């Protein structure tokens, strides 16, 4: 087995153990939520018999270890169970919504990465001048602006006043514009701050001075510096993608985007245990995979980074 595949197997084995832990914590936490799930699912006007029926069908009358064991066995068989509210397979519900959230998170990440790096580089190369000040201002604004407020503001401007964009929904590329900006602004801010500080460090390095001393164009010097400053930036972008998956909840609500964030909130409110567990599980799995991919990307960006011997 080559070093690379051994490394990958090791990482994946660790991932499976992590996921089993996630399932355990999740099953315990969901059961610890206050309130009678069966009552909420059955509805206020349901009879006691109907409530009992729901309790049994969800297995909520069983002890927690039994519930955990059943969940793991189902998981091994590739099933995430049946939604208590929709009566359909959890996997199907998630499969239906996940692509929307991923599309949004990818667009938000690209938006954040492209504008964040550009802003950060500009700020670093123009340190102390007005460009830097504007960059800092945007950074602070992006981090501190509530997603919800920004979303409504964009809707008022682009939909109500200018009538350029749809207020929400998922019909065509136009409906992606505002959610992407709303979601991407935060990560743009984070990425630009990180880029600025690592670039400032790198631009002070001897090799950059050497390159400049050779008399090359400034942008070539910056390109050299950026390549070397990239590792921490990449880490931030990778982490941001994960945050965006979670952060999509509010954005999806404001823009009526039919993604998984909205579904998660809805299913928590409905105490739809199987669906909540399924979504959390999928989120956890994606986060783990994302971490592995980010680690692998390090060695692509910087050949000196060796993940395995």
């Amino acid at each position: 087995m080559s070093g690379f595949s051994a490394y990958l197997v090791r990482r994946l084995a660790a991932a499976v153990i992590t996921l089993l832990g996630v399932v355990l914590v999740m099953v315990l936490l969901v059961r610890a939520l206050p309130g009678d799930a069966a009552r909420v699912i059955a509805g206020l006007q349901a009879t006691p018999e109907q409530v009992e029926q729901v309790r049994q069908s969800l297995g909520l009358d069983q002890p927690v270890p039994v519930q955990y064991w059943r969940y793991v066995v189902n998981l091994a068989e590739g099933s995430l169970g049946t939604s208590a509210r929709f009566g359909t397979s959890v996997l199907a519900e998630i499969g239906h919504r996940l692509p929307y959230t991923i599309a949004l998170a990818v667009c938000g990440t690209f938006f954040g990465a492209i504008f964040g790096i550009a802003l950060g580089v500009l700020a670093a190369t123009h340190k102390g001048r007005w460009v830097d000040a504007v960059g800092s201002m945007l950074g602070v604004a992006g981090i501190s602006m509530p997603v919800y407020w920004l979303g409504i503001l964009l809707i008022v401007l682009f939909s109500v006043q200018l009538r350029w964009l749809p207020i929400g929904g998922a019909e065509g590329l136009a409906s992606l514009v505002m959610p992407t900006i709303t979601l991407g602004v935060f990560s743009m801010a984070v990425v630009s701050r990180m880029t600025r500080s690592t670039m400032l460090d790198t631009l002070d390095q001897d090799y950059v001075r050497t390159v400049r001393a050779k008399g090359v164009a400034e942008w070539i010097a910056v390109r050299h510096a950026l390549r070397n400053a990239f590792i921490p930036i990449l880490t931030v972008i990778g982490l941001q993608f994960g945050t965006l998956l979670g952060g999509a909840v509010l954005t999806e609500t404001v823009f009526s985007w039919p993604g998984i964030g909205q579904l998660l909130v809805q299913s928590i409110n409905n105490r739809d245990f199987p669906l909540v567990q399924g979504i959390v599980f999928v989120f956890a799995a994606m986060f783990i995979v994302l971490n592995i991919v980010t680690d692998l990307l390090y060695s692509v960006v910087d050949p000196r980074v060796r993940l395995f011997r």
Partner: protein
Amino acid sequence: MSTSHPQSSQATVSRRPRTGLAATLMFAVAMSVTAYASAQGTPAPSPNATLTIGIGVDLDTVDPAQQTTTTVQNVIDYGLEKLVAFDTQGKIKPLLATSWETSKDGLTLTLHLREGVKFHDGTPFNAEAAAFSLERLISGKVKVPIGAGFKSIKSIEAVNPSTLAIHLKNPDPNLLPNLSITTASIFSPTSATKEGNTPTNIVHPVGTGPYQFTRWNKGSEVVYTRVDDYWGAKPYYKTVSFKVIPEANSREAGLLAGQLDVIMNPPVTDLTALSSNPAVKLIKAPSDRSVFIAINVTKPPFDNEKVRQALNYAVDKDSIIKNVMFDAVNPMDSPFPSSLTGYCKVGSYKYDPAKAKQLLAEAGVKNLKVTLATPTGRYIQDSQFAQAVSGYLRKVGIEANVRTMDWPSYVSGMQQKDAPFELHVLGWAPGALDGPTQLQMFTGATMPPKGLNTSFFSDPAIDKLTAEAALNLDDASRNQQLCQIQKDVWQKAPWIFLWSQTLVLAHNAKITGVSYVPNEKFETLGAHPKP
């Protein structure tokens, strides 16, 4: 089951229906025939116009028997019809049944069905088909969360293609209203095994309505298309698209941006601005949902009627309605909201802090500390008005702390007699607009876990009268009984009586004919652009 006066109630039953029902029926039939045609003056159906409606919650099912939410019912109603329906006044009107009568003993309801009607898949509508849908509700094989109204049904019989007989275990004056709710919708029996449908779960409803279900993109949109050979008056819009927009501010923006024609529940804080906007028309439709603060009467000093009355006098409802509720609610003047059958106006606990203090003194109550629990975002301005109420209670010397909770914890908490709160905010909406469902909040038989009488209030006289009214088929004497109960309950005050909510709708002022049914439903079948 028997009432305490079987003779007298039998006697009145046999006298009334012949004259009363016949007259009502003739009137109702006449009304329904002319309703669309003349009153609304709908222009010829448009070949391509679309009506876009912004709704706040996504559907969880399109199966009429399994739904639990008024918005979902509202959407399902575009494609499926019931045997009977409610008009804008909440009175029962014919739909797929043209007339009906109850047998002398009150144990059989016979319905005469509309002839020549076809389901959207071409299957003929007849008594067999109607029986198929209704039997589902009592079979025990399908989850029917709003199924309590059908418990009196013993069996359903297709007498001939145009006559359906429903045999009952006991006389049930509330069966007809219950046949008007979405749960009792009639769908094509042939469709029950097609397009993903199974007899226990309908995912593609096929009915007889003016529109047919076309598609449901989960989380974003439900689309209905007009049926061109519909048996009744055809609506103007070719397509109705329900857009799922959970955020009220976004719905409002959609209306103002011209992307939505009608929206449900705009942000209540913007009602004043919307009502003065000439591009928007605002409708506050009366509803069946009363909102109140239930008082746990098992916890002293709330076992004392005077203390409960004092709470009612202590709160300035009118001021809260104006300043906190933005006039989106109507004050209660009876334990029943005015849209329920059997409602009678009883009185008002007019704001009178002096009287409240006096009653508290008479009850010997001093330095009272209570907890007022409220959900957040479940009812219009719920946690906000709870704060206002607590302020008013403080003015008469009651220290009321407001406690907010998420809905599931709330539902579980309020069903406990020893819950960590004495007062809690709750709403209750009898979708069949029937008095008895409202009375479940005040009878000993419906305390948790059997029902949601979460004030744990019961009174032998009220229990007895409620049981009698439930079996009384004579409208006039039943209404008298119901009125007496309302007076008694009002006096004994197991709630701080607040208001009945309205269903707030806003639509583009360029269209007209948007209507409603007083059980939290809107109706756009008569809607069209202004000429």
